[in-house]
């Protein structure tokens, strides 16, 4: 009994140490963002001045990132969910090959993908300088995550029989897709959406090459701030980033949780 208690406290201590190792730098960075002078430490006092400067100088990057990630989500939903549906329904050598190829944009370094995009479309002036150029990169990068998570759910349910039984009840393709297929891969769609938004919001490698001075995203702006401005401003930027993204992620997490059952376990009808 006592030995178990010792083991328990040892494990708890270890876990807390690992957590601290990861969390302390984040907390310090966030604190730095509200410290008057980081060199002098917290004694120099707290201020919202740096946050104000970030807001004044970089709020466009925040809005652009949120905008791109949401449009990216919309595009991956429209492309990815039907793609996953087709891949789940047609199990043959070609669809399996496509499934494998889908991982490529994740495996290939973002820089390489970005370079390929620039080499190919760099000459198209209006496109090159617009935010949609970054969007294309993000869609390439995040689409596999949407397809994979929806596909995983679709493969786990007996999609074929569910659709057959719906059609035996008179449901045409549209009704089957929107009333049976989509609701039953809700979990996969939400998990995929969470990935897509998070990845798009934080994407740096590719965006670093794709952006123009007028199309800076949040992570690019962050790198900019750390590289060329006071440490306090960079840290304040991180703080703003957290404040923006954490509620968004929490909301999406809450949505993707499975629905609670309404009543207790079955108890009748088995005599």
């Amino acid at each position: 009994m006592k030995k178990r208690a010792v083991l328990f406290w040892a494990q708890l201590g270890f876990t807390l140490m690992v957590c601290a190792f990861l969390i302390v730098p984040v907390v310090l960075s966030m604190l730095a963002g509200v410290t008057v002078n980081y060199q002098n430490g917290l004694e120099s006092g707290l201020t919202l001045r740096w946050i104000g400067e970030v807001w004044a100088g970089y709020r466009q990057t925040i809005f652009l990132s949120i905008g791109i990630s949401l449009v990216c989500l919309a595009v991956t939903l429209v492309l990815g969910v039907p793609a996953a549906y087709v891949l789940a329904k047609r199990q043959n050598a070609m669809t399996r090959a496509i499934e494998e190829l889908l991982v490529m944009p994740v495996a290939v370094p973002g820089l390489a993908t970005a370079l390929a995009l620039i080499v190919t479309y760099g000459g198209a002036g209006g496109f090159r300088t617009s935010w949609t150029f970054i969007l294309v990169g993000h869609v390439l990068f995040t689409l596999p995550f949407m397809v994979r998570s929806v596909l995983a759910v679709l493969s786990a349910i007996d999609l074929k029989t569910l659709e057959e039984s719906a059609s035996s009840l008179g449901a045409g393709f549209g009704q089957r897709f929107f009333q049976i297929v989509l609701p039953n891969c809700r979990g996969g769609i939400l998990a995929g959406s969470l990935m897509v938004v998070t990845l798009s919001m934080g994407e740096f490698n590719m965006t670093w090459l794709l952006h123009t001075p007028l199309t800076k995203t949040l992570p690019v702006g962050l790198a900019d701030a750390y590289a060329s401005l006071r440490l306090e401003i960079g840290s304040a930027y991180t703080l703003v980033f957290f404040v923006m993204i954490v509620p968004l992620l929490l909301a999406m997490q809450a949505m993707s949780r499975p629905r609670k059952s309404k009543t207790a376990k079955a108890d009748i009808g088995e005599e």
Partner: protein
Amino acid sequence: MMTDPVQPLAIALSRCGKTFADGTRALEPLDLEIKAGETVVFLGPSGCGKTTTLRIIAGLEDPDAGGRVLFDGVDVTAQPIEQRNVGMVFQSYALFPNMTVAENIGYGLRVRRAKKPAIAARVDEMLGMMRIEPLADRRIDQLSGGQRQRVALARALAVRPRALLLDEPLTALDAKLRDALRLEIDELLRRLGITAIYVTHDQAEAMALGDRIAVMDHGKMAQIGPPREIYRRPATRFVADFIGTMNRISGVARGGVFVTDAGAVPWLEAPPGTTEALFRPEDVTVVDEGQAHLKGSVVAAFFLGDRTRLFVKVDANKPLVVETDARRDYAHGETVGLRIDPRGLMAL
């Protein structure tokens, strides 16, 4: 209870075969007539083509070129399943996990854009008919297997289908529940008078439910007929062996007697040239050696409670299976006499 009369549907298949994309022949071209209101059971081992035939009738598979499916004489071969208005019940139930029991049952009506009160009324009627009212608001994952099957039946019947197609509906259930639900389905089909096609590999289910049984083997219909005919006058060796227990003994028919190595059995109607007699265990009685037609030695005896099943070796064939209600034990190697009721003898 269900008040609306369903106009039963007559179904006909004409030269319906099925070859899959990989060249596998699942079904040889088949002709079949199912009368309005009749229950036909497709019976056979897995891979015999029974489910393929059902799926062709449902519209889930297209027959090979030349095959036609007729509903009340109208060619529906080109119609997709959603236009055929047939109710289907699947082995896996295929209930929609994103809907409650009531929503599942009402789905077919929702698809037909019925008014909400009409759907609710029909759902209540179906819940009552299947005696599952308390489950209306349950989610599918909160139901037991038997409850799921009741919901699946209610859902299929809610749209007043022209025919009910059941694909191994009881296979996933345990034995006791299977018996109870079989009785329920039988009552239901009789009460509704609906044309029903029932696919199973379980001969007891087929015997209990079928007005006619179509025994299928290797993509062909080996025999179709009422259960008694299938049992008493099997058309092929496959049918004889697949349905019930069949004993066989080799010999020669000579002057109204079938002569074997183990003895002679009177058999006036033996077809000329018969070299093998077939008979069921219930047509054999275990008797004293003096009155016996055949003699053999017991190789195994199983006490079943109300009777004892004996395996009796009489010749080089498989031991004969016979049953006796004698209140005694049988020892291995013991010689017993067998008397065969001549009315039970069959030749193939």
